[in-house]
């Protein structure tokens, strides 16, 4: 991994990978959507089961994004890998987006079942807190002026969040069962029959590839911007 600490090497790797990742994601989306709409409606949930094919992948990507962000933060903090902080920062808005999508699709999925657009279900509530963790992380990066300090502060926040996240999930889960809310939004709902797993996995893979495509591109953009900035400074007034 240290080989790609060199921005130039990273750029060459990323430029090679991104088209493939993007193409793979697009293909998976096409297949996943096709499968998702071809599959028969659930006998309990009817057509709304199809929302699962975009809700669960969004949720999964949001969590994965935070994991990657925390991992990159750790690498940046401990090993001082030069690109790690950039990678962490680049992942945050993507993660926040997928969290928001997960919340929206979760709400729409539940509306036919619950009769309301929102319930303080364990899953959704945890998700909302995850969104706040993302937003706080982004806000911290933007609020601290010195780049190095911002990187380190954000890294610490990401790691503290990562440690706290399982505790948050556990406590929200405990709270849900307490207040007798129905945790309807377990992965997939009451029972998943095998026929739904194919579109689900395909879409999950599609979302994952999409995340990586966008992530790598964002890191590239930051590297290029930095180069431009240093060139401008070198040229002088």
């Amino acid at each position, binding site marked *: 991994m240290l080989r790609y600490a060199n921005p130039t090497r990273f750029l060459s790797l990323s430029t090679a990978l991104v088209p493939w990742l993007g193409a793979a994601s697009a293909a998976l989306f096409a297949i996943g959507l096709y499968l998702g709409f071809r599959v028969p409606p659930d006998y309990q949930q009817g057509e709304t089961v199809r929302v699962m094919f975009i809700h669960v992948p969004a949720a999964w990507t949001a969590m994965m994004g935070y994991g990657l962000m925390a991992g990159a933060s750790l690498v940046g903090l401990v090993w001082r890998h030069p690109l790690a902080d950039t990678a962490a920062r680049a992942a945050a808005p993507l993660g926040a987006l997928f969290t928001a999508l997960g919340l929206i699709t979760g709400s729409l999925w539940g509306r036919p079942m619950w009769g309301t657009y929102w319930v303080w279900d364990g899953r959704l509530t945890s998700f909302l*807190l995850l969104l*706040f*963790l993302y*937003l*706080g*992380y982004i*806000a*911290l990066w933007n*609020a*601290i*002026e*010195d780049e190095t*300090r911002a990187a*380190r*502060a954000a890294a*610490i*926040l990401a*790691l*503290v*969040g990562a*440690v*706290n996240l399982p*505790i*948050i999930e*556990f*406590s*929200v889960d*405990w*709270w849900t069962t*307490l207040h007798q809310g129905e945790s309807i939004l377990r992965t997939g709902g009451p029972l998943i029959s095998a026929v739904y797993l194919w579109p689900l996995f395909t879409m999950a893979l599609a979302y994952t590839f999409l995340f990586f495509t966008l992530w790598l591109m964002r890191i590239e953009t930051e590297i290029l911007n930095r180069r431009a900035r240093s060139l401008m400074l070198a040229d002088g007034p």
Partner: protein
Amino acid sequence: MSAILIRDIRLAARAGGSAMLALAFFAAVATLVPLGVGADLRLLARIAPGVLWVAAVLAALLALDRLFQADFEDGSLDVIALAPASLETTALAKIAAHWLTTGLPLTLLSPLLAVMFGQEAPRALFVSLLIGTPAVSAIGAIGAGLTLSIRRGGLILPLIVLPLLAPAVIFGAGAAEEVAGALPLLAAFSLGACVLSPFATAASVRLNLGS
């Protein structure tokens, strides 16, 4: 470490009592809630544990952004950071001082507010706040360290700290309602927070030191 503790308590007491500020905020919020939801004592008694817990957390966060400010500005943090592990000890001392001047007073006031909310036995709330507010100080301190160099850091601090405090509110309010198992969970969370926070706090203070 006790020297720092005593000094911080004295500073806090002198600083117009952030304790008074926190207490006033706590009471003010507790007063506004019935104005908002109505005077039905049965309803108030039902929501009291949660509402008072949230109010206490918010009140405890008030003075947090000033936790390290004074020492940061006069350079004494840089001096402290030179000695090994003493930044961690200082962090722990500051967390303790913060709790003694916010969490503890809030806990002591809570039975009065609980009674105003129609709760006849405020003991559960008292105990839950007693055990839970240290966690608020501990986790809040991490936020205070992270936002040290931000000029208007006070605004961003609640945003980053509050999601992390969700377990405290959940277990705390649960314990205040005497839900089975809530108090041990709260105690575990508090203990974990107090043990781990000094390290995270010290790390976040350290990154702000020395340009």
